[in-house]
């Protein structure tokens, strides 16, 4: 009974580790471990996949660890383990990534990852900083989180979902930018919950208690 935070050399896991461990401790949930071992993933009761940087690099980083991807797919598709993707970890849920080159995602949430194109040319890309969430539909991981709550974003690409029913929340940045997606036992946040103070910690706590 463990939540695994997958470490595939894609940036800083320290704050994510501390945030998940703290919320697990406070909520009396399963312990959180950081690992890249397929054997740990095979036994996991919950999976968190972070990701920083470019989609193709993250995808390759994951594929570079022998057996890891297979273990994740088996856990999510066959054992229906609750899964949370963060930032590029969320983007990898999509069918296709279109950053630099076309790369396949897990295809757990239909859609593609495309560059943000704000309709106001004065808006900078990357979209970096605090933006207020607009909740599109309720979900257990959003318990206690409302439209207007702020989350911390750092990204230049986002997911365009194929089915609007998979979109839980978006933000406005010269047009809608996807913030949270979910389908079945899978959920993903484009923002960093581990950097988003109270709303982020709340989402983490909700995920740790979620029984889809």
């Amino acid at each position, binding site marked *: 009974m463990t939540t695994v935070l997958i470490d595939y050399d894609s940036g800083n896991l*320290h*704050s994510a580790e501390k945030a998940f461990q703290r919320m697990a401790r406070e909520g009396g949930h399963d312990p959180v471990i950081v690992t890249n071992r397929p054997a740990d993933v095979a036994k996991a009761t919950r999976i968190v996949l972070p990701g*920083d940087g470019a989609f193709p690099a993250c995808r390759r980083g994951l594929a570079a660890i022998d057996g890891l991807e297979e273990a994740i797919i088996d856990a999510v598709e066959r054992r229906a383990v609750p899964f949370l993707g963060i930032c590029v970890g969320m983007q990898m849920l999509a069918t296709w990534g279109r950053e630099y080159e076309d790369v396949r995602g897990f295809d757990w949430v239909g859609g593609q990852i495309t560059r943000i194109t704000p309709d106001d040319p004065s808006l900078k890309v990357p979209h970096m900083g*605090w933006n207020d969430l607009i909740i599109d539909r309720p979900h257990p991981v959003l318990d206690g989180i409302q439209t207007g709550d702020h989350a911390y974003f750092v990204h230049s690409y986002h997911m365009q979902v194929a089915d609007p029913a998979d979109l839980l929340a978006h933000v*406005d940045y010269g047009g809608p930018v996807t913030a949270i997606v979910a389908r079945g036992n899978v959920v993903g946040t484009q923002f960093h919950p581990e*950097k988003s103070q109270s709303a982020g*910690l709340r989402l983490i706590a909700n995920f740790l208690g979620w029984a889809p």
Partner: protein
Amino acid sequence: MLKTRIIPCLDVADGRVVKGVNFVDLIDAGDPVESARAYDAAGADELCFLDIHATHENRGTMYDLATRTAEQCFMPLTIGGGVRTVDDVRDLLLAGADKVSFNSAAVADPDVVARAADRFGSQCIVVAIDAKTVAPGKWEIFTHGGRKPTGIDAVEFARTVVAKGAGEILLTSMDRDGTRAGFNLPLTRAIADAVPVPVIASGGVGTLDHLVEGVIEGHASAVLAASIFHFGDFTIAEAKAHMVAAGIPMRLS
């Protein structure tokens, strides 16, 4: 809507805050971690630690600070000062920093920015530019705390490092730093308008109106200040309220 960020910056030397933070009742105002927690609670949008005399020998102190801060503050943390190599970036990110800032090393070798961005992504690579006015509408990069001219045009340099992969520019006006006379607005605006990535304005804040000017006239995405917050002149909440009143969207929750 994306909010403008307020970023308090703590100058750190040998693991201690150089100018003590006295805006709240801290048990140890010299402890960067305790100061960080106070700013976290006060509603700061990000934090910045600047290691002001980083040496190879005292590097471990900064890693320890990053780790302890990341354990307690669930908000973005940028660390700069003495960052020279891709390995320095890696060590700081692993210790708990979210972004790492290059300064002189990027001037000496702009390709270090490309190497770091390729490895870790642009989102965590900041380049700190220290610039001085050398003629009207002309600014030059200075290194070594503003003492050493380089002959490099600041606007050109900003374009160069962004092309190499910098995800954000931390722009300090060395003419204004410490003066409390306000940001160098023409400089800030020239660079903010020249690059597609966010620019953090720094150097010279003495009043809350200066923060407003940095955004409205300087086109900065974020404002960094040290002494007006550390010395208790204003709280983060007062600064945000003042900026909202001026029509700037801020995160108040």
